[in-house]
Each structure stands twice: as C-alpha cells, then as structure tokens.
C-alpha cells in the first residue's frame, strides 16, 4: 500500500513538476517586474513590495472561509473554459473563441432565466443552463464546420466571432431584451433560475457541475471510442482518415462540444455570480482558459488543478491591488510568463537542472501545421 502510494506520488510529481516549476519561475520574474516598476510609480523604490503583494494575494485567495469559497467560485468557470480549450487541443484545434462562447452562454442563460424567473427552480435552473450550453455550442459550431469544410483556420474565425458576438449581444441587450426599470441596458432578474447556494454565502451549484464535467470529459477522452477518435485526429488527421475516421465530422463535433463547455461556463457564471447580462461583463475567463489548458497540459485532472490556481489568482488579486497598489494586471503578466516558460521549456529545464525528455506543451503540432495547410479535408 505504502509503496503504491509512493509510486503514485512520484508519477504525479513527474507529470506536474514542469508546470509547477514554470509557475514558480513566472512568479519570480513577475516579482522582479513589480520591483522594477516601483521606479516609475509615484511611491518610490520598494524592494519588498512583491512579498507584500504575494502575501495579500495568498490572503485574498485562501485567508478565510470566504476567501476559499471565492477561489472555488472563480475556479469553476475556468475549469469549464480550460476543458473547452483542452478538448480542442486534443483534436488539434485551438479554440480562442471561449470568450465569445462564454458571453453567448451567459446571455442565453440570462434571457431564459429571466423568462422563467417565477417558474419552479427544478425547471428554471436546468432550462437556463441548457440554453447557455446550446448558445455556446451554436457559436462554436460555425468555426468548426468552416474549418472542417473549407479549412478556414479557427484561430482567426473564433477571434472574429468573439468581437462580433460581443457587439451583437450589446445590441440585443439594448434593443431586444432590455428589462424595464433599470438605468442601463440589462436583462431582467433571474429569480428562481439562480443557481442554488450550497454552502456559505455563494458556494453555488456551478462548482460541482464544473468538477463533474472534468471527470466526464476525462471519461470521454480515455474510455470511449469517440474520445479515441478525437485524439487520433489531433495526433495525425491524415492517418485518422486513412484508418476510416471522419475528420470533417470529428472536427465539427469537437469544436461544438468545446463551445458547449464554454457556454456552460458563461451560464454558471451568470446564474451563480453576476445575475444579469449587460454589455461589458467580464469575459476574462476566455483568455484565462487558454493558460489553464496549457498549464494543465490538456489533461482534465491537470486542468482541475490549474483552474484552482488561476481561480486563486483572480480571487486574491483585488485584495492585493487594494492593499499594495500593485495592479491586478500583474496576473495577466504571470499568465503570459507561465505560457512562455511552458513553450520555451528549456529555460525551466536549465534553471532547475531537470532531465525531462518530453516537451511541456504536447500535441499542438496539428494546430500550427493546419495553418500552413489551410485546405479542405
């Protein structure tokens, strides 16, 4: 028993040490940036500022029961968004459209939730969640089918749909579904469609939903034929077709499933935290999800932990900014540095004298190759 536990711990460490060390290195470099930027700010040179900043970050993320709940609440949409990006990676697709799919999911959930505000929660909650999931899936279906049929690369089409969706939803909330009685354009109260709170002030149902999704996608990828086909298409589309699989169908389906997950992320954020849709609600989940998926190496369990890490960053950052004047955007810098150290993993390997053979980011060859091979399948 003990030997097995030790073996398990060793393999867990081997799988996670590159991401962990990349994170540590990113935070160290960000600390240097924070110190350097004190020269430009009015406050003067403060060599200890990063320590105070990170302590406040830690306190904001884990310092109390409320803080821990906030971390979990922030992590839940990141788990779903990270799964959305990670699932795409498995099939050789880079869904940068999570931000747009997140917004459409949130919008659809808000509209259906407001319409069913007085219905029984047993009807209103599932209906609003399903609406969000479908809206996200529908928006991702477009780049999916275009990639599969025409070769139009999803990196450009999903970004374009992010911008278009944000604008069209701003129009819709202003002209189509604007709730009366508010000073700005927003949707109505969601009433009974709000996700039930399970614990404390705001630990809502979305958190178990997100964790369930982690294990569901893990099962899908590792235990089903469809999962095997998705991974095969990602590893080598030509070989997959030769083996009798249908890349057109698989690419479209994976992209749609990815959007479905992103849509649920938007729905739980809206039904569990924000409560109404207005133009300008944060879609930072979209870009955070890319970092979550890369840090989790596209593996559902890895995504679970990296979503918790980024959830902690997002939950703790406001306290850090209030107490130390270090801007929240330092989290974005840390995020970029983490991806940098994963992509250029030789830096991490050299700094920590590791002998890891494999690359820190796996299975993305197809994403870049398909850029240079934008032809119909």
């Amino acid at each position, binding site marked *: 028993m003990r030997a097995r536990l030790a073996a398990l711990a060793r393999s867990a460490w081997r799988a996670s040490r590159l991401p962990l060390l990349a994170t540590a290195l990113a935070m160290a470099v960000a600390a240097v940036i924070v110190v350097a930027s004190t020269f430009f700010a009015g406050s003067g040179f403060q060599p200890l500022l990063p320590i105070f900043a990170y302590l406040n970050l830690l306190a904001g993320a884990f310092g109390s029961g409320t803080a821990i709940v906030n971390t979990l609440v922030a992590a839940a949409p990141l788990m779903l968004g990270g799964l959305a990006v990670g699932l795409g990676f498995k099939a050789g697709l880079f869904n940068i459209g999570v931000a747009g799919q997140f917004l459409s999911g949130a919008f659809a959930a808000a509209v259906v939730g407001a319409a069913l505000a007085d219905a029984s929660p047993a009807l209103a909650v599932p209906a609003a969640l399903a609406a969000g999931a479908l809206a996200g899936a529908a928006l991702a279906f477009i780049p999916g089918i275009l990639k599969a049929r025409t070769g139009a690369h999803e990196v450009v089409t999903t970004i374009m749909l992010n911008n*278009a969706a944000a604008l069209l939803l701003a129009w819709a909330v202003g002209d189509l579904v604007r709730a009366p009685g508010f000073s700005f354009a927003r949707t109505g109260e969601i009433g009974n469609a709000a996700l039930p709170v399970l614990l404390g002030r705001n630990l809502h149902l979305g958190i178990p939903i997100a964790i369930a999704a982690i294990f569901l996608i893990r099962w899908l990828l590792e235990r089903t034929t469809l999962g095997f086909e998705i991974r095969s298409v990602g590893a080598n589309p030509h070989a997959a077709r030769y083996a009798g699989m249908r890349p057109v169908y698989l690419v479209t389906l994976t992209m749609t499933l990815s959007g479905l997950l992103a849509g649920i992320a938007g729905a739980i954020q809206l039904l569990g935290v924000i409560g109404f849709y207005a133009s300008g609600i944060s879609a930072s989940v979209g870009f955070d999800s890319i970092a979550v998926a890369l840090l989790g190496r596209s593996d559902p369990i890895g995504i679970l932990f990296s979503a918790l890490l980024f959830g902690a960053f997002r939950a703790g950052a406001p306290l850090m900014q209030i107490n130390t004047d270090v801007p929240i955007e330092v989290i974005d810098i840390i995020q970029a540095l983490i991806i*940098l150290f994963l*992509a250029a993993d030789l830096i991490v390997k050299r700094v920590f004298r590791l002998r890891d053979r494999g690359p820190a980011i796996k299975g993305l060859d197809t994403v870049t190759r398909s850029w240079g091979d934008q032809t119909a399948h």
Partner: protein
Amino acid sequence: MDGLLAIPRLLADLGAYLLLVMPDLLPIILALATPLALGALCGLINERSGVVNIGIEGIMLTAAFTAYLTGFALHEALGSGPALALGIVVAILTGALAGLLHAWLCVTVRADQVIAGTIINVAAFGVTGYLNRLVITPSGRGGAGVIPSASLPESVTTLPLVGPIIAMFFEQGPIAMSVLFLVIALQVLLFRSRWGLRTRAVGEHPRAADTVGIDVLGLRYRNVIAGCALAGLAGAYLTLESTGSFQNGMTGGRGFIALAAMIFGRYTPVGAFGGALLFGAITALGIVVSVRPPTGELGSLMTGIPSFWYAALPYLVTVVILAGVVGRSRPPAADGIPYVKEGRA
C-alpha cells in the same frame, strides 16, 4: 412581388449614394485600412519566410502603448512634434523587440508558433494594462496629441475623378501615406530582388535553400524582426496618428483581421493591401451612414440597421471571406514548421 422589384431600385440608390459620399469615404477607408495593411505586411513577411505569427495583435497593442507613453512622457520637455516623432521610433523598436522574442521562440527554441503568438498577445494585454494603470491613469495628464495630416490645395482635391483619390492617399498623416510606398516596395522586393527570392525559398523549401548556402535561421530572424517592426508602426498609427489616446485592448482584433487580409491577398503585398482596403471600406460604411445618412427608402433602410450591426460587419465579413477564399489561397509550404539543420536534431 413588390418587394422583389424594390431590390434593383435600392441597389441603384445605393450605388448613387456611394458615388455621392465617395470623396468623404475614401480618406476614411485608407485611415481604417492603414493598421490592417501594416499588420498584413508583417504577417506576410513572417509567413513568406516560414514563420506563423498570430501575435500581430499583441505587438500592435504594445507598440501603441509605448508610442503613447513616449509622447506622454516627453511632450512637455521636447514639445509635441519631436515627442511624436520619437514615439514612432520607439513603436518601431518595440515591434522589432517583440519580433526578436517571436523569432527566438519560433526559430531557436522551435516552440509551437501559434503558442508563441499567443504568449505575445496575452503578455501585451497584461503589460500594457499594468503600466497604463500604474503610470498613465493616476497622472490624469494627456498624451502628445496627434500627428497632423497633410493638406493639399483645393484645386487638386476638387479635380474630377482623380481629386478624391489623390486626397485619399496624400491628405493623410505620414504613417498612412507611407503605406502605399511600403506596399509597392515590398511587392517589388519580394518578387524581384535577391532578398525576396531567398525569403520565398526559405518559406517554401528551407532544406533546398540551406543546401545552396542560404542562412535559413538568420534570414528567418531578420524577416520576423523586420515584419514585426511594421506591426509596431501600425501601433504608433493607432495612438499617435489616429486617436491620440490609449485604451486597454484598443487594437480590437485588428491584428487578426490583418491576417485575414493577408490570406485574402494570397500572400502578396498588393493583394493584402486590397484586402485591408476592403475591410476599411466595410467599416467606413457604418461611419458614413451615421454621419451623412442617405435619403428616401434607402435611407430609412440603412439608418434602420443598428450601429452595432455595422460595427460587427467587418468581423463577420472576415469569417465569410476566410471560408470562401482560403481554399484557393495557398500558404508557403514550410509555413509554421521549424527548420532543423541536418544532423542536429
């Protein structure tokens, strides 16, 4: 039936309206197309030499910020003219520096090129937002203003037919005016010079290029850096020539539309410029309709379309164009594939 008959009449009205507003429309089109064209040239030089660059958006944003920051910091000491000129130089250097990072990741580290671009995009958003909140927002001061546009004598711009076109290209600021020259120069260089031949060779078949003694890695480095310097110029255009201010995330997807313009133009400078003008024209339409709405039936139809729809149009057209054109636009054969010298893998 009546509705069907109205369509040709409305199209004729639309044509007449576009002809009427053309003198107003043309300069706006070039102004909107300038950052897209510069971004597309950046993408083109990169991809022609075999490096995919989706970080153009982030490079533009970072350069837009450093250009603005230079003007912001120096215009009181130097006066706004020299501060603006220095801002342009700093933006170009910022682009080149980002290009160095991209080249290092793609050529030396042989990291995934799409991820390398993503790093630049995420970092640009974070670094500019961070410094904006730390330095510019608390000061409450403004920047160095905008670079003035050239103005031509009225006798030239009112010439029939050619007048508006001359005004389109030459009643502009220096960066917008330089685009036309850059496009023509690159078109000639890419297809008629030794550099162009080598660049295309390195993008199509690096092994063959290496065999005849071309320094594949060095050329890729130089081209990525030079291309990204142009994306830096696009950033300077946004803050110093177009708006005179900086907002977080102000590039708004232009770096990606630029890639679409590049693909639309089949990886040639002139074609990419055409693509950029097309996207500029689509965006300009919404502006002109709101400023000088058409009259009659067409007017009620076009002003009836919400402004958000006009704003979303260029993004939607990008998707449609990519889907329609991409199969016929062939990228360089070695695009996105790192080069490894034989025996060193």
